[in-house]
């Protein structure tokens, strides 16, 4: 047992009827870090999370949360963790302040509703029915309910799904604040950008397994082709066929641009320019960027995250 670990899980399996949702997940989350489980819908992120939250017993495998076991220390674990779900789980006619008070009453020690309202920027919504809140406000309330017991470990399931960019920024700010307060955060997301910005470490999940673990930088640096050249066109891109044949390495055509992963930007760029010259490709712009977690997922699975 390791005291510096907030979560220690090994060999997790879970099937629902004939669907094998999680197939052998090992996970260690260090105290104080923000860890992201990253993957498309149906990758098994939520099931993994629910096993760690003690909601779903694994078919096999071992879980320790804050050094304790769900099977005999459930109540002790529950008093020290906070959980936020994707869906709205409250009665429509509960007011914001009442929800915070009610959830606070479940714990031996709870933060004052006023303090949480201030933290969440919901002071002027204290007496509003939760049904009347905007998407971002509702997510912040859900986060507030997860923080009501001053938890050491916070689980966030897709905290920004369905939010507009501004609301997403607000939530990111709150997550950074949690980390600043020394809490451990385990979140799931299917936004690669979110994982890159927020997480100290990420695990890329697909089809019930964690394909790769590491800091966003490590994962990107570990790619065979850590840079991406993008050729933009005015209007839609021409047929990529002749170019792909001449180039001989992967090219991804997406709408108005071609994305070309590069193994070594210095060398590959020259031959790329050569190809463009010879074929007289009618390009508008060419730029080279660092690969993203999006590209990591693509290269690991051969599929794009958004499919």
């Amino acid at each position, binding site marked *: 047992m390791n005291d510096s670990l907030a979560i220690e899980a090994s060999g997790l399996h879970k099937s629902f009827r004939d669907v094998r949702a999680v197939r052998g997940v090992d996970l260690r989350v260090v105290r104080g870090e923000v860890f992201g489980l990253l993957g498309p819908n149906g990758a098994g992120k939520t099931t993994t999370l629910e096993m760690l939250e003690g909601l779903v017993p694994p078919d096999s495998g071992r879980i320790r949360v804050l050094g304790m076991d769900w099977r005999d220390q459930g109540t002790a674990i529950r008093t020290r963790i906070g959980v936020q779900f994707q869906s709205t*789980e409250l009665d429509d006619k509960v007011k914001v302040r009442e929800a915070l008070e009610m959830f606070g009453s*479940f714990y031996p020690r709870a933060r004052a509703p006023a303090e949480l309202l201030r933290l969440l920027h919901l002071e002027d919504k204290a007496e509003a029915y939760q049904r009347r809140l905007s998407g971002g406000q509702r997510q912040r309330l859900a986060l507030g309910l997860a923080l009501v017991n001053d938890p050491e470990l916070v689980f966030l399931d897709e905290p920004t799904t369905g939010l507009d960019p501004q609301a997403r920024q607000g939530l990111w700010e709150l997550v950074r604040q949690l980390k600043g307060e020394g809490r451990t955060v385990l979140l799931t997301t299917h936004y690669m950008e979110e994982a890159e910005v927020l997480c100290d470490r990420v695990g890329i999940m697909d089809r019930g397994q964690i394909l790769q673990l590491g800091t966003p930088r490590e994962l990107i640096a570990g790619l065979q082709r850590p840079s991406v050249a993008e050729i933009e066109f005015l209007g839609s891109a021409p047929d990529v066929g002749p170019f792909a044949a001449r180039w001989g390495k992967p090219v991804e055509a997406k709408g108005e641009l071609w994305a070309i992963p590069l193994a070594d930007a210095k060398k590959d760029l020259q031959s790329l320019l050569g190809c463009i010259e010879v074929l007289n490709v009618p390009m508008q712009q060419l730029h080279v960027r660092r690969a993203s977690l999006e590209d990591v997922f693509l290269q690991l699975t051969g599929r794009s995250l958004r499919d």
Partner: protein
Amino acid sequence: MNARIFWQQVKMGLILYTRVPAALFWIVAFPVVMLLALGTVFGGNDGGDRKLVWEQSGAPAPADALLIAALSERGTAVEAVSAADAEARWKGGKLPVLLEGRDGRYSLRINNYLVGQAMQTEATVQEAFLVAQARAHGLADPARIPVVMSSPGGHRGGPYAAYLLPGLLGLNLLMMGVFSTGIVDVTLRAKGGYKRLATTPLPRYVYLGAQLAVRILVVLIAAALLMLVGALAFGIHNEGGYAGLLLVQMLGAACFISLGYLLASFAQTPEVYSGIANLTFLPLMLLSGVYFSLDGAPAWLQRTADLLPLTPLLRVLRAIFNDGASLASQWTGIAIVTAWTAALFAAATRRFKWV
């Protein structure tokens, strides 16, 4: 700690009830409305100023005067109208009875949609006719068999509202269980509400206990209001012990709240649930004799109804409320409801899923 959570949950549950007007209407106001409406419509007018419409064509016969006198002695005034008027009023559909008199010969037309009201008038007219005939022949008035309206227990000769009120008390328990409890359970589970609670240290029995307490409190408040309205509007009172009445209502509440949770365990969405709930509610209600006695129904149907939970529950409630019966005298009905409660509670507990 748990007691504090319990009371907080009960308080919150009651507050939420007051914020959902539809829930309050069905449980608290609906029985009162039914009592006032049905109690008034079917209340009859107790030998007061009944009026008989009489179609007279041609000149009045001498016998007519005797009949009118005999009717008026029996509290029934006669309104004579022309044939054309009588036909128009009959077609209007509101006349229960029309007396037609031609040259000393009478016939009664009875509206078969309004048999309940018509039968009383008809009996009076027949009696008055016999009296008038006897008098025409210089004989003494014929005697009739005296009639006493009374409930089966014999203590009360009260109005229809007195039959209805205990029925509504019982029906309300069924509505609370099947509609108010089940639908909330399904909705909360579909929303992930139970899942969210399961991640907190809130003990499940505290949560469910508070839910039960809120529902029983609401249904008892509704019962108190209904009884108050019954006393003020119709002068009907509980003839039996309040402790017994309370105990039977709590038993009924436990029975039907268990039923609600059990039905809810078969539905994933509120839409599916309302189908299941109606399929259960309607036969139970129709076979229970809430509004009318099932005496006219086939014997096999009555025997079936006797074994369902609502029918014996209503019989026990009526025996206590109307006839002041003791709990002991109602043991068969109580035993049937208790058996249902035990079975439903066991099944609901077994199937209840928190996550």
